[in-house]
């Protein structure tokens, strides 16, 4: 299905991403990383339900410095995917289709994801 002679430009170091493209590719990347996290999340969920000891062990894993760092990263994955997902659904029903509207909603979703992840993490701390 390749069309001969069509110009192809895929130099990733030279491609400048507008904000809407940035949140979009981050939506895909966060989605894939969230999928990779599923086994870990299921394991923690199962451990936390197994019994009083398991519950404490699960909290211990999350409270460990490495666990806390992973938790912050994971919360950002989830919140970014959540807010950019809402943005996509809104764009599909016609909200923010202008150039400015698209940029505004992209920035809003990006910032909302970062801020809510930090806030939820702070509450857990």
């Amino acid at each position, binding site marked *: 299905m390749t069309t001969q002679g069509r110009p192809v430009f895929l130099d990733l170091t030279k491609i400048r991403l507008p904000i809407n493209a940035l949140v979009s590719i981050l939506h*895909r990347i966060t*989605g*894939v990383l969230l999928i990779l996290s599923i086994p870990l999340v*299921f394991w923690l969920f*199962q451990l*936390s*339900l197994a019994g*009083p000891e398991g519950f404490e062990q699960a909290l211990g894993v999350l409270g460990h410095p490495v666990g806390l760092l992973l938790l912050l990263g994971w919360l950002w994955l989830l919140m970014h995917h959540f807010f950019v*997902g809402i943005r996509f*659904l809104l764009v599909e029903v016609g909200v923010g289709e202008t150039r400015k509207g698209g940029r505004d909603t992209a920035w809003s979703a990006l910032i909302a994801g970062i801020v809510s992840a930090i806030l939820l993490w702070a509450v857990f701390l």
Partner: protein
Amino acid sequence: MSVLSGQRAWLLQRITAVYAGVYVFFAVALLLARPPADHAAWLALITHPVVGLATAVFAVLMLLHAWIGLRDVILDYVRPFGVRLTALAIVAIFFLLLGLWALWILIEAALR
């Protein structure tokens, strides 16, 4: 893959996204409002009929959502037919196992 092609996958991706988004919103709100203090409270919360059922539905729809998403990624980037088919098959088995695991966790919790 014909049962999950084109518009049907697109629509299913949106429907599962809406359910998963609403579930995450309420889950976060509930955990913020009433953080479970110990195992007993946590188990009681998860095995509450409404929460348990909502969570089981979430697990299935979220995995379906993730499956469609990863399938789109594979269809975008993995071109050789054999490699693509192998990747799709591995992903399908991966998600089926995760689905069984999720339901097992919830049933196990309900019987505890």
